[in-house]
């Protein structure tokens, strides 16, 4: 079946601009996670949704970052007033209710802030 998909695959934006990154999880997966990965590092947790609600947003670095999942499926990560330090690969993952730690990752969106 289809895996986790993310769009766009690459995004280049200017400092100060607003960006939206989209994630389409595996059908039927109730949990959705956003991670950020910098070069040479492991994925860093940002936010976790169980259904439509954000169950844990403790990883969001500041209030410029926001994510939604209005219908419990597709999620959008929104970054306002982008900074060069936001440049990274943004990974989305989903998991089934009974196996929360077996997370299936999408290909990621590479964000470059110039």
């Amino acid at each position: 079946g289809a895996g986790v998909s993310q769009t766009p695959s690459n995004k280049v934006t200017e400092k100060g601009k607003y960006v939206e990154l989209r994630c389409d999880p595996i059908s039927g997966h109730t949990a959705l996670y956003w991670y950020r990965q910098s070069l040479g590092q492991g994925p860093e947790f940002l936010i976790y949704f169980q259904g439509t609600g954000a169950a844990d947003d403790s990883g969001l670095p500041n209030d410029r970052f926001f994510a939604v999942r209005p219908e419990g499926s597709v999620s959008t990560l929104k970054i306002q007033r982008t900074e060069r330090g936001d440049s990274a690969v943004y990974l989305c993952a989903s998991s089934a209710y009974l196996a929360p730690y077996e997370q299936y990752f999408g290909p990621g969106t590479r964000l470059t802030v110039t």
Partner: protein
Amino acid sequence: GQQVMQIPQYQHVQEGEDFTTYCNSSTTLSNIQWYKQRPGGHPVFLIQLVKSGEVKKQKRLTFQFGEAKKNSSLHITATQTTDVGTYFCAGPGGGSEKLVFGKGTKLTVNP
């Protein structure tokens, strides 16, 4: 906060040699996961360990969870070029289903 550390950071081996990566957590874990990320790819789930002292095998890969549930290891026997990639361990972050990942061990294999 919780930290997950992995050593070594890099490992270069000749094809056919064995490889081991070690993972240590600052806190006791209820379970631990291992993921593999190929160059240019995304992390792919390999296995979950739950029980103290648990050992699981997947063909040439052997995973072990420590008795104190604070450390784990991944051992690959007779590496192949298809084993190239970065291997991450990850543990629950506490309070939710988020994962805390180590920095990974990057394995390169010389044919």
